[in-house]
């Protein structure tokens, strides 16, 4: 097992380099370069001068492979460089700030999705074609089909403007600094309600359908039949025998969604004015802010590879068949 993990880890290195190289090429192929988006008046001689100055500063005047090599040698020392934006801040600071916010949001969201999707899936599977099943099916598909921005605006209008119960946008009130310790958390929580609701509403559909499907397959298995024949209580059959096995694919899906945790939803962030990863990334792409784009890509790629590895290892842990098969082969 250890050897297997080690081998996978080693294989990940060239893969990571390949990913970054291709990404580097692709983003540099997009028309326009960062210096062009920063000048108010792109015509005057002095702005041409300023552009040239920036090009030299950012090493954009060098051939692409040199630029990539320089970037690579910096990144292996964990130096993400400075943003090309006029604030020239370290990329790591920018990503750090946005990541915090996105992680909080996504973790809460994931927690809610899992804690709702699993019971919904189980219930609709065990009571297939019941009223509950039908209602939840309709509900989750409505959620799936509702555009985020539309739902967000409706909720903002209802709870923010009409009823005045919840704040409309951002994560803190304007007077946040003046609040007491506990009030601050309350303030943050109230700001989180709407964005989290909007984000989970759509995500619920996918996972609950997977859960339902997986559960349906499991309950048809012979060993469930056997468990029932033994006279076990339905409760025990479902929760102890069926659920455990039905959760396997869900674990995979969750593990693979790990990199997604750091990717923010652009629409939700834009409309709720939350400075998360989605907004950072979109702004960086529009401004051709290569260091920020690449910094983010490295993190996402690393997490994706790590998630794959973790998923494979976890398989082995939860499913003895895979573990044994692996041992026989090596």
């Amino acid at each position: 097992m250890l050897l297997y993990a080690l081998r996978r880890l080693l294989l990940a290195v060239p893969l990571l380099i390949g990913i970054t190289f291709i990404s580097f090429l692709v983003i540099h192929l997009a028309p326009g370069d960062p210096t062009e988006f920063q000048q108010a008046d792109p015509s005057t001689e002095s702005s041409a001068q300023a552009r040239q100055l920036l090009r030299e500063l950012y090493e954009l005047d060098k051939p692409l492979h040199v630029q990539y090599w320089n970037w690579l040698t910096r990144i292996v020392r964990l130096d993400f460089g400075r943003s090309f934006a006029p604030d020239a801040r370290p990329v790591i600071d920018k990503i750090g700030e946005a990541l915090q916010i996105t992680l909080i949001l996504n973790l809460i969201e994931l927690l809610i999705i899992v804690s709702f999707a699993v019971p919904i899936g189980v219930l609709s599977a065990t009571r297939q074609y019941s009223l509950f099943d039908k209602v939840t099916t309709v509900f989750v598909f409505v959620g799936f089909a509702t555009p985020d921005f539309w739902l967000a605006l409706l909720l903002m209008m209802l709870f923010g403007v009409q009823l005045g119960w919840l704040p409309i946008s951002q994560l803190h009130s304007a007077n946040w600094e003046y609040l007491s310790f506990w009030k601050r958390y309350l303030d943050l929580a109230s700001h989180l309600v709407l964005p989290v609701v909007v984000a989970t509403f759509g995500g619920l559909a996918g996972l609950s359908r997977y859960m339902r499907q997986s559960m349906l397959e499991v309950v048809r298995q012979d060993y469930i039949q056997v468990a029932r024949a033994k006279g076990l209580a339905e409760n025990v059959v479902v929760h102890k025998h069926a659920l455990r096995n039905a959760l396997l694919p869900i674990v995979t899906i969750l593990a693979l969604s790990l990199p997604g945790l750091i990717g923010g939803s652009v629409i939700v962030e834009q409309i709720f004015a939350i400075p998360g990863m989605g907004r950072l990334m979109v702004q960086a792409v529009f401004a051709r802010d290569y260091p920020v784009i690449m910094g983010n890509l490295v993190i996402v790629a690393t997490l994706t590879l790590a998630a794959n590895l973790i998923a494979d290892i976890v398989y082995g842990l939860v499913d003895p068949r895979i573990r044994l098969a692996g041992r026989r082969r090596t």
Partner: protein
Amino acid sequence: MAVLLCAAVVAGCSNDLDGAEVPGGGAPAKRAYGDTLIEALLADVSGLIPNILSDSPSYEVGGLIYNGLVGFDRDLNLVGELAESWSFSTDCLDLTFTLRPNATWHDGRPFTADDVLFTYETMVHPKTPTSNRESFKVIERVDVVGPRTVHIRYSKPYAKALQSWGLSVLPRHVLEPYVRDGKLREAPQNWKDPVGTGPYRFAERRAGEKIVLVANRAYFAGPPYISRVVYRIIPSQPTIFLELKAKGVDAGRLNALQYARQTNYPAFEKAYRKYRHAGGGYTYLGFNLKDPRFADRRVRQAIAHAIDKRELIDGVLFGLGRDATGPYKPGTWAHNPNVKTYPHDLARARALLSEAGWKEKNAEGLLVKDGKPFTFELMTNQGNEERRKVAEIVQASLRDLGIGVEIRIIEWASFIKEYVKKRRFEAIVLGWGIGPDPDQYEIWHSSKTGPDDLNHISYANPEVDDRLEKGRSACVPAERVKHYHRLQEILAEDQPVVFLYFGDALPVVSSRVHGIVPGPNGIRYNFPEWYVPAALHRYTSG
């Protein structure tokens, strides 16, 4: 920086002007210090040293933190800020400023003539990444005559000399090492704790979320009334609108639809005052004059006659715009109201087209010349509803004449880089933002047709060139007026672009704020004098 290219954002680069309509203010209440004003910003500032930046949020926030030597008043006259007075020599080559005696930096150090010299050195330093250098390259030298006197020598008469000193003056004692190393962008003051002389000082910021400024009690012109300004960064126009409705922000901008249709209910009108003044940019229909069809002036005039501007302004802006007859804002000193206009007249348009050889129509009803039907592609950028609607109305109007228009909408960056700069277009709908000075050399001069230049349409007219050159070097305003008035006559006759309209800027401010006097310069020019009467204070911060 006379001209900026207006991108997608509605309020992105307007620079407020002219003809305000004010709801009556009532009896003036007693001025009082205190309260907080919460403003919505569509984007975070890109930095806090405006001299090296070009986005409008940075200028808005920076405008409260820094001062120029001069500034614009309500009617766009230049008035002293850090300069108490100034004088020009008769040949316009020597400019001498006398500075205020009592101005201090936010860190307590006195402001002196040496800081003016430093600001000049910063702007011309080869490693300063700024596109505002132009106005400072014509300076021969800057001499500090005394702690309160600066003398500036120009190498040639320069019409924008005085105005160019409206630029933020920077502190030598804080920023000098960064300028020397060419690292002004990385200076911590570009991110946090900038040091200026302005009415507000920086308090704190949270990236992408908010910027807080507090009143500078030591401000040389007396402390501002409103004690705290919070800029909330909300990158979505609909969200700002909802925040306004819920009173989560005190000031913002409306779009035409919101102004005309969605804010007329009593609660909104009680809570806010809406303002309306000519915005800082116009929308135009531009032609690629290298295209033989559009090189013919009669064709351009015919198209101008075919477009009903009133319908356009009503349809696109709910009437909240002004007819553009040329590139200058109506009501400003450079604007010439007596130029040729093109009333909606299809018969006249048809006559002009047939003069130009477009006489026959084919089976589809399109005009044909030399066997080719008259169709062209009209491009504009993505994300701007207004321009899309303009394109559609133009399409429908020209269809009546027998000209086929195909609309193509392209993402901003590729649109500019791949099509506009490379001149790979037949016609475009775009806008120009214009500053307070009428110099538009960059847009209309025939030498400015290179790939990075702004004369995208490849316009060339020797008399226009001549007027532009004279207008920017004349130092007597009366003489400049003459050149610019003539320039507008030629442009109106030539129609190198069809000038469509100036959209109105539609700011809205909480009605508890008093002291706002709109004018040709918009509303923000006297921000330090805005106040909230004590009885109406909403926030109790000090």
